[in-house]
């Protein structure tokens, strides 16, 4: 059972999310809060497995969700966070992953209509992994076409690079592309070699490394 606390100030979105989560058997929405203070005290009290939160909410309506995720990293490190955002900006995801990407997910707000994606994000985070909305990664990859590193990759490798950046595990990539785990590992080695990234078995660190590469921060 995954226990979830929701932070969302819009009534409409709260209703929508509640309806989606209610339809999933082993996900239990324990509380819904409308602003940062309420969310903070509720999470302190309830200690859920995952906090599902809008990026902006009162008091300042800017990036409360991301700042709260940063706080939790220190105060309650075992609590995962899924941030829902209307901004298709990789910068926000990077800032969410500032202190590490484990147990953190950045999802576009419109996913609340998409039960499978929302559920996957909550499960990945509850299992200690991370996730970046595929639409953002797609945008990053297509913007980087023409980059000398990306040009060296085969189409299959590009596909796998995007999946890595989304936070997929080797097993999940293998399943999705219907190839063996062994083949996935071989591809990943090839990608990291071509992009001159340090090889890393740790999935969470490798999400960040690929995102950094794709946003061009390392250049």
């Amino acid at each position: 059972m995954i226990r979830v606390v929701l932070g969302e100030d819009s009534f409409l979105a709260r209703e929508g999310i509640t309806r989606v989560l209610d339809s999933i058997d082993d996900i239990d929405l324990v509380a819904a809060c409308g602003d940062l203070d309420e969310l903070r005290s509720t999470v302190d009290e309830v200690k859920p497995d995952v906090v599902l939160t809008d990026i902006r909410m009162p008091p300042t309506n800017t990036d409360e969700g991301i700042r709260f995720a940063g706080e939790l990293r220190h105060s309650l490190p075992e609590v995962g966070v899924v941030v829902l955002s209307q901004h298709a900006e990789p910068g926000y995801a990077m800032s969410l992953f500032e202190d590490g990407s484990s147990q953190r997910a950045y999802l576009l707000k419109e996913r609340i209509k998409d039960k499978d994606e929302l559920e996957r994000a909550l499960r990945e985070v509850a299992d200690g992994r991370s996730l970046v909305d595929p639409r953002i990664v797609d945008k990053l990859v297509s913007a980087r076409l023409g980059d000398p590193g990306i040009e060296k990759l085969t189409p299959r490798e590009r596909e796998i690079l995007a999946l890595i950046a989304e936070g997929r595990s080797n097993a999940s990539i293998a399943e999705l592309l219907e190839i063996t785990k062994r083949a996935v590992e071989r591809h990943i080695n090839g990608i990291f070699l071509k992009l001159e990234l340090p090889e890393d078995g740790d999935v969470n660190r490798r999400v960040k490394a690929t995102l950094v590469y794709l946003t061009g921060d390392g250049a």
Partner: protein
Amino acid sequence: MSEVVYRESADRAWAQRLPHAPARYAAGVLALAGLYYAGAKTGYLLEFSGPVAAIVWLPVGVGIAFLYLGGIAYWPGVLIGDLLANNYMVLPLGSALGQTCGNVLEVLISTMLLRRLVRHGSPLGSVRGVGAIAVSIAAGAAVSATVGATSLLSGGVIDFGALPTVWRTWWLGDASGALLVVPLALAWYAPLPKGWTRARWLEAGALLLGVVGLADFASRSTTPIAYVVFPVLIWAALRFGQRGATLAVAVTAIFTVWNVTHYVGPFHVNSITRSVLTTQLFIAVAALTTLSLAAAVTERERFAMRLGASRLRLISASDNARRRIEHDLHDGAQLRLTWLAQRLHDSAGTAHREPDRASELLKEAEGELQLAIDELRELAHGIHPAVLVDLGLAEALKSLALRSSIPVKLVELPSSRLDSGAETVGYYVVAEAIANAQKYSGASLIQVRAAAARGMLRLEIADDGVGGAVEHSGSGLEGLRDRAEASGGIMELVSPPGGGTRVEVAIPA
């Protein structure tokens, strides 16, 4: 106010074009020679009798003004005029020719220096320009005084002991003559403004009477009260700009010189050299002060006009932005949602008749809805990018780069957050420059540099496109300049045809 408006490009083109028709050129040279000769003869009228250099040597001013406005190529006119004006009865031929050489050199040096120091607009239009006039004239006069005094010495006209006095008188005489004539010519050369009201004419008349009356009174009075002309000189400069100032100074100078050469007034003392010196200093000081004031007035008016215009542009820019948002909402999201509503309505009917087909329609509707969501997100981002406020300029520029249809290379980005005002201006400057490049440049790469150092945010946006960009009215580049200047910054545009376009902006951060 009578600001002299120089249309820069037209003015320059005429000044630099070589006279193409020989007849026209000859006429120009002869006209200059005639004017120069007349100036010299007028100068002789305003002189003490005897072998003393002029108090105000007017022809040098005639020469500089003619060459500055008409073109350097007319210089032989100065040579001819000067040769005609020489008094060969009192001077040995060698000294006379030496003197003429000095005078021609003086005019050429002053003109070229002035052109070099003031590259845009009228030199009278700014205090800096008036300074440039003073420096150019002083340098030219020094050459003429040196060559002339040496020629007189070697011709045996003066002895060595008199050299310093002759040099000084010569230098001040040439300088004050040029300071009278050059600004007068520059100010009155441009076409006269039209549409003076009756009150304006009356004021001009009163001013002229005041100048004439006070200048005559002050330069005749036996008590040293020459300074009483200053209030009317200031009046002229404040209310009638460059034309008023130059005319008032000229009138004052004429009366002062006339009276002192007729042995009356505060400048007349027993020694002729001292009379000459005090008169020259008075004229030079009055001219420079009044011209500087008029220049400051012109400058202020020009800034006020530019400020007014840029305020109007800012208002219309914000109106245009609102109109564009309305248009985007109306033609984009609203249209999609309407279409969607119709789709859903159809699906309801279809669900009743053929349930299989209905699910297909609903799927399509969902896709359409996703497009509407994307459009709204982009629209919100365009109105104000949240990423700029939340994460700062560096992230916002990365997001701009992702959206550009031409590849954008971010060469340098600020490593920390800056003043939020500077970040906003910086963002829109880059956004506008990139949008401009996308529209017109045909470039294959845009390079962006943003660096903060020593309290300034420096931005550089360079593309490798067709170049040749100009800031015409209503262009994105003009809006860009408005943004930069409104925040106390500066903007520079480098866009040679075929050489790409580079926009550089520095704003306080």
